[in-house]
Each structure stands twice: as structure tokens, then as C-alpha cells.
């Protein structure tokens, strides 16, 4: 059983299929945990210890701790779960989008979303 996400069926569009769901299980479970106030507190107090509780690999931990959204998704993180990180450590969803698109935030708003900025 391959653990890592494979090719995208639609270009640049990661479908959350069995491989991603399996591969991202730890990251997503950790992030799901952030829907409880006491876990948000624990995450704030000692992020590394909180991540260890969910058995994240060093690679996964680094992606989370550096807020590397693209990498979290590549490792199987699903945005609906990992978005809860932004409830603890605020960041706009358009910034998360821009990061994944590999664009400056203003460019992203202008060129992807058609905003006048």
C-alpha cells in the first residue's frame, strides 16, 4: 500500500482520495483536535508537544510548525482540517491559497479571484 499521495488526476488539484486520506490521517487528526478549546490551549502553550501527542513524523511536524500549507496538503492534510490551525494562529484563507498557488497575496487576489487590489 503506497502511503504518499500520487499523481493528480486533474492538474494541480489534489483530490482527497484513499491515499491522501491514509497519508494525512495523523495531521488531520491533530488538526481536528483543535476544535476543542483545551487542545487549542495546549497547541498554543507547546506546539511541538501537542503535535507529538498525535504521532506526527518529523516531516509532518516541520510542515505544520513552519505553516507550510502547500507541504501539509502534499502530505495528505485536508484544508478543512488544517484550517483549524488558523483559528489558533490567525492567517487569512486567501493567504493560505496564495501560498499554495505560489503567488504573492495581491497577485493571487487579482489574478485568481479577480479582485481589484
Amino acid at each position, binding site marked *: 500500500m503506497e502511503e504518499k499521495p500520487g499523481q493528480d488526476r486533474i492538474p494541480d488539484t489534489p483530490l482527497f482520495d484513499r491515499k491522501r486520506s491514509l497519508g494525512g490521517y495523523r495531521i488531520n487528526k491533530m488538526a481536528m483536535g483543535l476544535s476543542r478549546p483545551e487542545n487549542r490551549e495546549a497547541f498554543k502553550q507547546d506546539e511541538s508537544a501537542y503535535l507529538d501527542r498525535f504521532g506526527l513524523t518529523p516531516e509532518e511536524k516541520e510542515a505544520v510548525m513552519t505553516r507550510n500549507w502547500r507541504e501539509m496538503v502534499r502530505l495528505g492534510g485536508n484544508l478543512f482540517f488544517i484550517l483549524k490551525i488558523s483559528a489558533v494562529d490567525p492567517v487569512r484563507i486567501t493567504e*493560505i491559497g496564495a501560498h499554495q498557488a505560489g503567488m504573492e497575496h495581491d497577485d493571487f487576489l487579482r489574478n485568481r479571484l479577480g479582485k481589484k487590489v
Partner: protein
Amino acid sequence: MAKLIGGLGTSHVPSIGAAIDKGLRETPDWKPFFDGYIPGQDWVKEHKPDVAVVIFNDHGNSFFLDKVPTFAVGCAEEYRPVDEGWGPRAIPPFKGAVDFSWHFIDTLIDNRFDPMICQEIEVDHGIQVPMELFWGRPAEWPVRVVPIFVNVIQYPIPLPSRCYEMGRVLRQAIESYPTDERFVVLGTGGLSHQLQGARAGFVNPEADRAFLNDIAGDPDKLANMSREQYVEMFGSEGAELMMWLVMRGAMDRDVVVRHKHYFVPASMTGAGMIVMENMATASPAVAA
């Protein structure tokens, strides 16, 4: 017997709820979006539905990946807002149409659907935002709800045509329900958006506008599209738009469009709204 008085469709973007909570309704970014819903709110005030059946997806809040139901139907007395990470939102809990929910579940099982049956469950922005968009922010909701959760996140997600079929069974359940209550069905989600991958930020206003036409005029075309086509056309998260087919499947072939609105972007999403009535029971002046 109960009566289906309308089919509503709307996006359910979480930022919409956040914008309301933060009092941003009148800001330049949001005013044109919210203004578009005024006719929808007026329609609801005028037609006073008793029960709202709301089709939506959970976004990793009520369900985790350990156990993912394809379809889940609520039959609880009450549905409280779930904590999505920012604490539960300060909106009134939804009252359930418990007896109809069970009748619908019976009808589903008899028609070879395999729902998960939920007597106790919290609900996320997937239902909250649509209710706020059509009913505003009352002290108590003037309708009772039936939540239908559809898995559109973890593959395999259901076929669009299966969603459409479920709508037909919903209609059958409404028409065999021995009260004189007035039902609306809300299809929610979409329109185009993609939150992950290098194509993040993808919106497709042209496809969205075509969808708003076809959902009324050519739903069979939409029901026959593949899941991949939804993803390609509306983005990986925009594919949830197929949930509108449950609503559309509950309606007649011929409908009247009462209101329609499109705005892009709401947050990162093409945001659409529609209000439809069955042609056969629409008020004659408009149906003509």
C-alpha cells in the same frame, strides 16, 4: 398531505458567517453580496415554510475521517452549532422536524438508500450560513429543519446522479407525509472554488452562471455529469455543488425561477443563490 413550496439554492462559505458576526454587512466588499439575498429573504417571509430540508456537507467538524457516512440524515430534536475552532457561533440552535425526519428515513430505506441515522449531532457552517442568508438572524428560527449530510470530501464521494435520485425520494416522502406543513428544500454549497493545490483560488464565473441556468432548465444534464467534470469545472471544493441536485431532484421537471443572484468572489468562492417554485403550483401570474 405536506407540500413542497419551493427549492432554494445557495453557497455556504464560512466567511459569510464571519462577515455577519463581525458586522461587515455594509462594507463595500460584502454589501453587494448580501443585498442579492434580499429578494430571497422576502420570498421566505411571504411563503412562510414550516420545514426546511437542508442538504449540505460537514467540513471536518461533526465527522472525522475515522467514520465517514456517504449520506446522513438528522432526526434530532435540536441541532447545536459545532465548534469549528473559533468556538461555537452565537446563533440559536435549530429545532428538528423529528417526525418527518423519521418518515423520510423510512422512505429512503424502502427506496434502497442506506443513510446513517443521526439522533444526536452538531452542525457546522454548511447549514448555518444558508439559514442565516434566507432567514436572517432571528431570536428563534421560525422553521424546523431536516439536515442531510453528504460526503463530498473524502473519495469516493457519491455520484451526482445518486444525489438527484435522493431528491426524488425526498419529494415522495414530503408528498406522503400526512400533515399540511409547507416544505422548502435547500441545496447548498459551491459554486466554483478551490482551496487546495497549485490551482487554489480557481473560480469559474462562466460555469457558475451556466450552472444557475441549468439547475432550473436542464437539471438532467447536471445529474449526468461525472464527479471529475464537477471538479474540473468548479474546483476541488466547488464539486460540492452536486448537492444542489438533491434539492432539484425533489422538484418537478418544470420550474419557475423567482430570484437568482451571483457574486464573485465571496472569500475565495463564486457565490450563487436561486429561488425556484414548481411551475404547476406557482402563482399563475408568474407561471404564465
